[in-house]
């Protein structure tokens, strides 16, 4: 007896949302660069029956970049989506899933990401800083200066750059370059690195040895540099903050 065709799903049906949650977790789990993405909208869903209790689900998803670096231990549910004014980045994904006896798993996914157009940002927010290319000279200069500055002052391990996550440049009312970058702890202290930086090797690939930095360089009207770095495995709880909330909510977004 041929299987009855599966009931069509709407994009906001609980089954579609359950499949989308599995898909987003899979997509973030497969990525090793940039930031975690969160679901913004289910664009389309199609279900094809493969037999009793066996369906193939095709999803089209619209995702938005969050502020959580991909290496961050913060659960996606606690990650803040970047606002439109921060020059949002969108991800478009096609995902193929299987639902077998009620268990959903991802078979394949394909994603493209792109930043919102600069024209849109400027039209709605003329003074908002725009995303710059990650190999922009001013971005590279700011990352280098920020990391050097942090390493020159820290009493912790010497940090090496893993990747630049974001760079934004604002020209008015001041010339400001804001950067975000991922770092890895090395087997050297910052003091030891001053003697022979070439001998400093990244510690084993473990989440506790990764971290994240934010830096801003003001060029005009006067020169100023601010940087803050937080290693995910080296977060010190403050007396007025419960341990767990400090561990899972790194303060890498703070400025100092």
């Amino acid at each position, binding site marked *: 007896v041929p299987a009855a065709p599966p009931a*069509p*799903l*709407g*994009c*906001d*049906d609980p089954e*579609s949302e359950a499949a989308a949650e599995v898909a987003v977790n899979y997509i973030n789990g497969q990525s090793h660069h940039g930031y975690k993405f*969160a*679901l*913004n*909208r*289910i*664009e*389309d*869903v199609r279900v094809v029956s493969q037999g009793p209790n066996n369906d193939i689900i095709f999803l089209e998803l*619209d995702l*938005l970049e969050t502020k959580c670096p991909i290496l961050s231990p913060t659960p996606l549910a606690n990650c803040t*989506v970047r*606002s*439109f004014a921060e020059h*949002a980045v*969108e991800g478009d994904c096609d995902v193929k899933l299987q639902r077998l006896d009620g268990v959903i798993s991802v078979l394949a996914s394909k994603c493209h990401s792109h930043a*919102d157009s600069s024209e*849109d940002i400027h039209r709605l927010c003329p003074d908002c800083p725009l995303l710059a290319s990650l190999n922009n000279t001013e971005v590279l200069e700011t990352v280098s200066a920020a990391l050097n500055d942090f390493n020159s002052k820290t009493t912790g391990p010497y940090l090496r750059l893993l990747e630049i996550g974001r760079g934004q440049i604002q020209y008015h009312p001041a010339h400001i370059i804001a950067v975000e970058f991922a770092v890895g702890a090395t087997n050297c202290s910052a003091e030891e690195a001053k003697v022979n930086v070439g001998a400093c090797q990244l510690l084993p690939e473990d989440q506790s040895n990764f971290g994240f930095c934010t830096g801003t360089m003001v060029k005009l009207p006067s020169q100023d540099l601010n940087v803050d770095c937080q290693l995910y495995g080296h977060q010190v709880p403050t007396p007025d903050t419960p341990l767990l909330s400090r561990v899972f909510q790194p303060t890498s977004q703070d400025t100092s």
Partner: protein
Amino acid sequence: PVAKRAVAEAAQHDKVARPVGFVPLPPPCPGKIRHFDI
């Protein structure tokens, strides 16, 4: 007259099929926007 009766019956049928307070279902896709549209 035949045409008029048919229209009247259709209108009556429509009233029976849609109870008071009937709200058309939203289109099944795309779904709701959780954050913002870009």
